[in-house]
Structures are given as structure tokens and as C-alpha cells.
């Protein structure tokens, strides 16, 4: 691995040299920021989201996060297919971070020396320095702390972007996640009226490109670097072998199905760092959907399917009206069923006959 590692470090150093130091706003000084209250957040694994206020109770603060990068093999389907994953905090996607507008996000990123590659982080929510990528490139054994001001509200992707061909490879190896910047006074509907959610789930969709052997079986590799050349060939075909939610086929079904009750309002945040997708809740709707993800724009109403552009995160607010098992899919149904992009909600509650009833059960076709 010596040559591979050398090559990767070479790319890393190149990218770092290009980055410039950002200038701070003239009106707010370092001292001002230092005087702000600080809050330390413990991130949790998706689809769950760390506790947070929907309406900010105080003025802006510095919100501290720590993420540790983990390179590790993960199994991505029921056949045991292996991906040499690169992850923020050990999960695909990385955890959802939640702050309010005008808060300062202060992230400490750690690249333990057990890893073999250089990594960084590009926040689509941040301004300048390649989204922070230019200030966060770290080799194994290093850590870095970045602070950026959350100036715009919405859901935004973050991902690794260590330069050149490393960028797509790291992203489709799992290094992506999302941050949600809430308006200080919470979410509002298309009429400007406040809306709240009882539960929030974060779904990060991934497209994986696993090479196959001559018989068509998926190959596995000792390390991420060993698979690099083969994987890039599959990537360049632009046809993923897997399209999955939260890192593997079936990660949000069965035991891990998301749970809600009739009458509860759920916010589903959906990110796709690389490729377009079209979420659909089978048997339900999007009451209010921020398809492009940005809360300054009024949400679309009553959507059947919404479009999340590759490289963005959107969200949909829905109040469950009927009990049952709901499938939440990428409504390219081939990707949902054949490639893996299916999640389930288990919703308990009372059936509403007015909304739907089986007037007559199946029976032989009537003659005469």
C-alpha cells in the first residue's frame, strides 16, 4: 500500500496548497464570537437525529460537534457484498447535524492513524474555502477544527472532497451526510404559519459501484486503495450496483423500520450527495415539501413524489392519517426494489374508514 498511500497523500497536499485563509466579517470580531454561549452536541447515528429545539430559545451560539472518520469494511446487502467504506462517525450517511440560522457550527474532525487516507469535509451550508474543504484536509493521525456561520436555512449536504478523482470515490464510498439549519423561529408552511414535527428521521441515500468478477459476482478487496482502479471503472459507467438508504439494503426495514403513530407529524430529511433521487411514501404524501431543501422558499404542498437533486438534501413533512406498513422508496422502482432503496414505516393507530375501505373483498368474477 506504500505507493497508493503516497499517491493519495500527494493529492491531499496539492489541494491544501490551493486553499486560502478566509477573511472574517468586518462587523463581527473574533472576540464577539468568543463571547457567544457554546453548546456541545453529541451526534447520533441515522436515521435518528440528536435532540434539538425546533424554535431557538436563545440568541445565536457556537454549536460544537466532533466527528471521527472511520475507514472500515461494511456489508451492504443480504449476500454479504463488501464495501471498503469511508465514513463520518462510522455511519453511512454521516450523522445529521442540526443548528439554527446565525449559529456558528464548530466542527472538530478527527482522522485516526488507523485510517490510510487523507480526508476533509465540504459543507454546502458553508461559505468559502470549498465549503470548508480547503481548511480541513487531514492525514491519518491528524485532527482539525473548522468554524462556519450558518447563514442560510435549509437542509444541506456535507461530503468529503479531498481533490480530483478522490472526490467522487470518497463520496460513493460513504463519506457524506447532511446538516439542517432551522430558522430561529422554526419551520413555516406555505402560508407562513408555524409547523412542527413530532418525530424526525434522516435518510441518506447512497449509490455504490461494486466491481464484479468474470462470473458476475461482486468482488471484495483487502483495502479501499486496492479496489480503487476497479471501482472507478464501474463509477464511470454511471450505473450503480446498489442504491440504498442508510448504508445498506434493508437498513430501515424489519427491526429497523421507522415508527410513528396516526396523528403524528414526521419530518423526513433525505440527502443524496451524488445522484438524483425521487422519494415517495407509498400510501401517504408530502404535506409540505422543501424539495430543494431551503426553508426560505415556501414548501410545496401535497406532493406525491419529490425530487432531490444529486448533491442536495430536501425534507418532507407529513402527518400520518392511517395505520399500517408504509414503504418509503426512491420511486425509480427498479432502484427501490432491485437495487435496495426501500425503507419502511410502521404506523400504529385507528383505521379511518372514511379515507379508505374495501367495499367488497376479492371474490370470483360475477357471472350474469
Amino acid at each position, binding site marked *: 500500500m506504500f505507493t497508493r498511500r503516497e499517491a493519495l497523500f500527494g493529492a491531499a497536499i496539492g489541494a491544501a496548497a490551493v486553499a486560502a485563509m478566509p477573511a472574517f466579517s468586518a462587523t463581527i470580531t473574533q472576540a464577539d464570537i468568543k463571547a457567544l454561549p457554546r453548546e456541545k452536541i453529541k451526534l447520533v447515528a441515522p436515521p435518528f437525529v440528536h435532540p434539538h429545539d425546533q424554535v431557538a430559545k436563545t440568541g445565536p451560539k457556537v454549536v460544537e460537534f466532533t466527528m471521527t472518520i472511520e475507514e472500515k469494511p461494511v456489508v451492504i446487502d443480504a449476500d454479504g457484498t463488501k464495501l471498503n467504506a469511508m465514513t463520518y462517525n462510522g455511519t453511512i450517511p454521516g450523522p445529521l447535524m442540526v443548528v439554527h440560522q446565525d449559529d456558528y457550527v464548530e466542527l472538530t474532525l478527527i482522522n485516526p492513524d488507523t485510517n490510510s487516507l487523507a480526508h476533509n469535509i465540504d459543507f454546502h451550508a458553508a461559505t468559502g474555502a470549498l465549503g470548508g474543504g480547503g481548511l480541513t484536509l487531514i492525514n491519518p493521525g491528524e485532527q482539525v477544527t473548522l468554524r462556519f456561520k450558518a447563514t442560510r436555512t435549509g437542509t444541506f449536504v456535507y461530503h468529503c472532497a479531498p481533490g480530483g478523482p478522490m472526490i467522487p470515490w470518497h463520496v460513493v464510498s460513504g463519506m457524506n451526510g447532511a446538516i439542517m439549519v432551522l430558522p430561529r423561529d422554526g419551520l413555516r408552511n406555505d402560508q407562513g404559519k408555524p409547523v412542527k414535527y413530532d418525530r424526525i428521521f434522516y435518510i441518506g441515500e447512497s449509490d455504490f459501484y461494486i466491481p464484479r468478477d468474470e*462470473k458476475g*459476482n461482486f468482488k471484495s478487496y483487502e483495502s479501499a486503495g486496492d479496489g480503487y482502479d476497479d471501482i472507478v471503472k464501474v463509477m464511470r459507467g454511471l450505473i450503480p450496483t446498489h442504491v440504498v438508504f442508510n448504508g445498506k439494503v434493508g437498513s430501515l*426495514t*424489519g427491526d429497523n423500520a421507522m415508527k410513528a403513530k396516526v396523528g403524528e407529524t414526521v419530518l423526513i430529511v433525505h440527502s443524496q450527495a451524488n445522484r438524483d433521487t425521487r422519494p415517495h411514501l407509498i400510501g401517504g404524501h408530502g404535506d409540505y415539501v422543501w424539495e430543494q431543501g431551503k426553508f426560505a422558499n415556501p414548501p410545496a404542498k401535497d406532493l406525491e413524489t419529490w425530487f432531490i437533486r444529486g448533491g442536495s438534501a430536501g425534507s418532507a413533512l407529513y402527518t400520518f392519517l392511517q*395505520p*399500517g406498513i408504509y414503504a418509503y422508496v426512491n420511486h425509480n422502482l427498479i432502484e427501490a426494489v432491485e437495487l435496495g432503496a426501500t425503507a419502511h414505516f*410502521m404506523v400504529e393507530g385507528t383505521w379511518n*374508514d372514511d379515507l379508505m375501505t374495501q367495499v367488497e373483498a376479492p371474490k*370470483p368474477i360475477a357471472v350474469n
Partner: protein
Amino acid sequence: MSLSILKLVSVAMAAATVPVGLSIQAAGGHRQSRPVAMTTLLPGSITYPMPGEFLKGGHPQGNPRLERQLDRPLEIMTYQVSVGDYAACVAAGGCQPPQETRAVPSDAPVTGVSYLDAEAYARWYSEATGGHWRLPSDEEWAFAAAERFAGEFEGVEDDANNPARRWLTSYKAEVELKIKPDPRPRSRGSFGVNSRGLADFSGNVWEWTSTCYVRTTLAADGTGVASSVDNCGVHVLEGRHRAYMSNFVSDGKSGGCAVGTPPDNLGFRLIRDHAGWANRIFGWLGIV
């Protein structure tokens, strides 16, 4: 499902099981070189949940449990049809190649086979051996599998006022089975024998049966069947849980079991109809 009833039956039957893996060659008149291990089960009865879907008064019902009498001995393959067995059919032009690209031991059960493939194999094998070979019916399979028979999920609730109860409870029941995917076919015998001396039931290969999917409307007074519609484009598979799949499907993951865990692999074993031979054996054993 009441397993205890099945267990009682199987204990009773086990004593009467006649493993005759070798004797078949003497009596069977095989024209092909590869003898197949067979086990003969004496007649008996089972109480088991019927396959298919059942309605009463317009609402889904639990599958009725019926006692079924098998009044003739059942001569069934001790193991599932193997990769090697099936390859002989492919080589002879009687079968399509299986949809299987993984490296699988040649003595593993053949996988990646559809109902149509299984039927083709039975036809070819009957011709090759001069016997009459066929897939077991669902009840024959359940009888042979004995304590390995799983059937329907337990704990499924039917609530006339809330159809979602059925969906939610059956989803939970399936989750509670805690079946982990186990996709890699293994050498025959890897999943052990059941109380009847038959191997590999309900391992990681689900087996095709000759039973069609059927939707039955039960009479409102509970005394019988008001109507039923067969769909023989879909057949019943048995394994760690019951599945229904289209005849042309050869990959378990393509669906079949509610919304949750699909079968790992699809395969089959055959039954031989040969009443005359069986009677001779029973006569020889002094049973009849």
C-alpha cells in the same frame, strides 16, 4: 400455528419411518447411473395450516388448520436435488441452466431454479429413470418436514375494523423470527436431518411445491368453502416460512414473503409415485 400438534404427529410417525436409501436401487429399475437417496414415510395424518389466503365476511382470516390424511406411503428424496443432479438434466437438454453465478459446491442443493425449472427436471428425471417423479404438494411437504415445517407466522391479528392490524402484526411476527439472511448454499446435509430422517428441510433453501396459490372465501356459517379462485401462475414454497412466488421466479430475493425477509434461495426435491413398489417393501417388512 400449534407446533405441539405437529410434534405429536411426527413422533408417532418417526417410529414408522423406513429409510431405504439403498434398497430402492434393487427395486427401482434405474436407467441412470446416479442413484438418489430416498426415504419412504408410512401413511399418517397431519394437522396443519392450509396455504393461501382466506376470507370470511369480507375480512381476512387466519389460515384454517385442517387434519389431512395421507393414506399412501410417501417416497421422497432424502436430500434436495443437488447441483450435480440438476447439471445432468441441463447436459441432457432437459433443463435450463440454473440462475446461479456463485461458486457453489456440486453436492449443494441446486439453487436459482424456478417452478418451471423444477417441473422440467421432474419430467426429465421421470423419463431418465422410467419412474414417475413429481414435486410434493404443500401438505406432503409439511408431512415430510415434520417438526421443520413452519408454515404461517404466529401472532397475526385480524381486526374487522382495522385492516392495518393484520399488516402490522404480520410484519412484527416476521421480524421476531429474527431470520438473518444466509444466502450461501452449503453441501447437502449441512442443515441436518429431521425426525423422519430427511435432510436439510428449512435450511437456507426454500422448496417448490406443486400447490397453487388459492384465495378461498369461507362460508359465513363456518361450515365450508363458499368460493375459491386458484392462481396456478403462483406456487407455494416452504422453508423457514411459507412463501408464494410466480412460476418463473428463480431468485428468492425477488419477493414472496410479505414485505420483509425473502427466501434466501429457491430449490426443490421430488416425490416418486410407485405404489406397487412401496407395497412390495411393506410386504417385505411384514407391515401390511
